[in-house]
């Protein structure tokens, strides 16, 4: 635990306040939510197709999806859709809610849904691969859309149902591929609860639409009349603003925030004790399995045993994250973890065991420098890369290098520029790296797809950076995709086999669960999500693609601090 001093609360008072309402240029503090941690620079576009860099709230607050996904109860939650069902094995029918209108007053219809999914036919649209197994879409009537599949990938389809923004056909229909992919989409017309009020270099201001359909249809209303999302260039600035109470929600990684949560600063997090945050994704150590000695599962296992994750969790993160289970499956997927497999094939930090495994596999220290050599006697000198500037990972990488050395494996941490790292990762010219590019989702399918995706290409862009090839595993992953999403047992059967393969072969080594960083100030808004009592259990997060995973619901549960 951290000793040290607990800083005293700042003397400053919240700015703004009731007196300011008279000023038209000033947003009333009690009706405005200030957030940060998603956007790191000027808002660039309001294009919901650009799910990775559109301005905060573009998808989720302005544009909406057919469904949301309830991470607590692990089920789809009808949103623009009133409901959806498989009418046969390869046909899915969506019923839309009646009475929804676009922000320009036009009615929202089945044609809009058809149009939006058909945008994926353009090669450069990110969900283009949907059309590898989707055959066609039919707007049966204004409220009904029918999707016909050549191959029904149930798991993936659910993901697509809550991930794809629906855009208005009447506005978008004449847009070229270039505009669809690269357009700024100024003045977006959406169905969502907010509209963009203005933007500036360092902020986006959203204003609630009081005619939003969900008010009546869902009986929900997001409480803040205004949301100001601030682009803070760095975490410490966010921390300063939180302390000044100019900020209500920070989705930044704020090291040492535990001290503030314990202190009297009016700051809260989901848990009021370690790990403080919900988990958002798994950080893995990715070995390049095409290189020696990482091509040897025994070596990878030894490496896994050598890593002192606990030290990283405690020293680097100050207990803001929790160590990952050997399977790496997020806590939300706990029901898929096969404890038998874990206890028989799992690994823990154990330097002695690591040494033992190395010795058993034939990696011995021949020249007496305390470091093992390859089976053929050549030196092992591995480098572990993380992007320069990613401080917590840099520290973690140093820690991994040190503990691996303890076990006799020579690992050096290096911090190339992000771009250079991406290139090495894509080309496969690395030894070890840390990666966490899969978030929580509706299905462990996405997790295993990342791990086992085949075929391994010349360039690996987003998945299977380890370049691990195992036909059986990939077949299992695809089988998993074809299990209906309500068939939990069927899914479990497959995932436990996948876990066996994972833990036997360790194509990636799960390290810890990165947090769903969210620190909230109670000075203006209360009823933030918390593990305690009947506070909301959703994530308080503005990150892109997380509104559908509970972020939006959180907004509806907030209460002004004064009430």
């Amino acid at each position: 635990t951290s000793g040290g001093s607990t800083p005293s609360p700042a003397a400053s008072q919240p700015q703004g306040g009731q007196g300011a309402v008279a000023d038209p240029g000033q947003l009333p503090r009690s009706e405005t939510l200030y957030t940060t941690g998603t956007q790191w620079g000027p808002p660039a576009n309001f294009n919901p197709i650009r799910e990775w860099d559109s301005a905060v709230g573009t998808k989720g607050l302005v544009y909406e999806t057919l469904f949301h996904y309830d991470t607590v109860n692990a089920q789809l939650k009808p949103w623009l859709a009133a409901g959806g069902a498989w009418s046969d094995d390869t046909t899915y029918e969506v019923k839309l809610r009646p009475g929804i209108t676009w922000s320009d007053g036009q009615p929202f219809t089945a044609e809009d849904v058809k149009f939006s999914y058909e945008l994926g036919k353009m090669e450069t649209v990110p969900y283009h691969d949907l059309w590898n197994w989707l055959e066609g879409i039919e707007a049966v009537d204004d409220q009904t859309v029918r999707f016909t599949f050549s191959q029904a990938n149930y798991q993936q389809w659910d993901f697509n149902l809550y991930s794809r923004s629906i855009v208005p056909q009447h506005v978008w229909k004449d847009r070229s591929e270039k505009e669809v992919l690269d357009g700024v989409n100024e003045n977006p017309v959406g169905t969502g609860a907010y509209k963009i009020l203005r933007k500036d270099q360092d902020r986006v201001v959203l204003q609630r639409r009081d005619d939003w359909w969900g008010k009546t249809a869902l009986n929900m209303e997001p409480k803040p009349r205004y949301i100001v999302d601030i682009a803070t260039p760095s975490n410490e600035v966010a921390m300063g603003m939180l302390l000044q109470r100019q900020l209500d929600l920070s989705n930044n990684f704020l090291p040492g925030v535990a001290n503030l949560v314990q202190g009297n600063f009016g700051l809260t997090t989901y848990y009021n004790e370690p790990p403080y945050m919900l988990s958002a994704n798994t950080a893995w150590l990715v070995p390049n399995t095409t290189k020696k000695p990482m091509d040897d599962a025994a070596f990878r296992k030894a490496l896994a045993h050598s890593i002192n994750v606990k030290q990283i969790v405690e020293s680097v993160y100050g207990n803001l994250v929790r160590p990952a289970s050997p399977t790496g499956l997020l806590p939300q997927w706990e029901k898929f973890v096969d404890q038998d497999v874990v206890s028989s094939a799992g690994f823990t930090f154990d330097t002695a065991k690591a040494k033992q495994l190395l010795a058993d596999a034939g990696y011995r220290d021949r020249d007496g420098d305390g470091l093992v050599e390859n089976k053929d006697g050549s030196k092992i000198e591995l480098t572990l890369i993380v992007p320069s500037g990613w401080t917590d990972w840099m520290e973690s990488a140093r820690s991994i290098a040190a503990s691996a050395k303890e076990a006799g494996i020579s690992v050096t941490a290096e911090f190339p520029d992000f771009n250079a790292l991406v290139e090495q990762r894509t080309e496969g010219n690395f030894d070890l790296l840390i990666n966490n590019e899969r978030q929580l989702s509706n299905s462990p399918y996405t997790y295993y797809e990342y791990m086992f995706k085949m075929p391994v290409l010349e360039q690996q862009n987003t998945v299977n950076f380890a370049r691990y090839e195992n036909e059986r595993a990939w077949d299992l992953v695809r089988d998993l995709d074809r299990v209906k999403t309500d068939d939990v047992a069927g899914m479990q059967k497959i995932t436990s086999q996948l876990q066996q393969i994972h833990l036997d072969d360790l194509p990636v080594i799960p390290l810890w669960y990165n947090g769903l960083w969210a620190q909230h100030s109670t000075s203006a808004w209360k009823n933030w999500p918390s593990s305690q009592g009947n506070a909301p259990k959703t994530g308080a997060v503005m990150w892109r693609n997380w509104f559908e995973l509970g972020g939006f619901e959180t907004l509806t549960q907030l209460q002004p601090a004064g009430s």
Partner: protein
Amino acid sequence: MRRYFRRKLLVYGLTFFVAVTVNWMIPRFMPGDPVASMVARANMTQPQAVAAMRAYYNDLFGFDQPLWQQYLSFWGALLRGDFGLSIWLFPTPVGTVIADAVPYTLALVVPSVLLSWVVGNWFGAYAARRRVLDNTVLPIGYILTATPYMWLAVLLAWGLGVVAGLFPVAGGYSFSMQPTWSWAFLLDLLHHWALPFLSLFLVALGGWAIGMRNMIIYELESDYANYLSALGAPSRLIRRYAFRNAVLPQITGLALQLGVIVAGALVTEIVFAYPGLGSLILKAIQNSDFFLLQGTFLFIVLGVLIANFIIDIVYVVVDPRTRAGMAGADA
């Protein structure tokens, strides 16, 4: 005179050419593929889609043309004022990104440069050859110039911002404000501007004060000063002359220092999350946004060049020595 300006223009032209060329070379000859990182960020899995996207961006940025042609079209675009598209803030044109940020940077740099120059010079001139001031206050000047910009900035942000609560620590104006032509808004702008300005101002102030102090001491030792005091002229007059003569080299000093001050502004903006070019550059680096980096870099070079040029002209106008051709080595 003409020859002087011809030479100056040649130097500036050459500098610009070199800067632009280096600039152009950056994304093309440095490790790391900008398109790859764009594709990686888009989170695509399907090889076909990746290939399509790659081809699309390569075409967009002209990476598929022969190098010389890329170079020429770069110049062409540049002369049309087209800096290309930002990768990080895709698809915003770099020109727009910069244009949005520049007012903030200018608002920070111009007053801090000019005010620190004026106040520093005045102060240094006042302290020179005055024992008490020279020995007590000027060391503060040394300390100030020796302070790393960011250290002072962070201390100010923490002390006056977080602890004392006197100033905000981030942003160009209150996040609750909307830009209007109202006093409240202007005040708010000033309120946010104060700390970054102060940190830039203080560091630069010390440098000018010391420089001026030394110059004045030299001037006070000069023949004309001796002559004037031998004729019993009051020290007020002598100091006034000394000041005027010493200020002239400080003008050239100003040109020399511009680059340094721009650098200081960069760091300061980062500390205060001030939405100017500095924060942009940092993010451009972190996000490998070559085009944005190119644009900002060119913009800074251009700014410094223009400022230098203005200073050159001012210098020739105000210093009769340059006009008579006696100034010796040219600037």
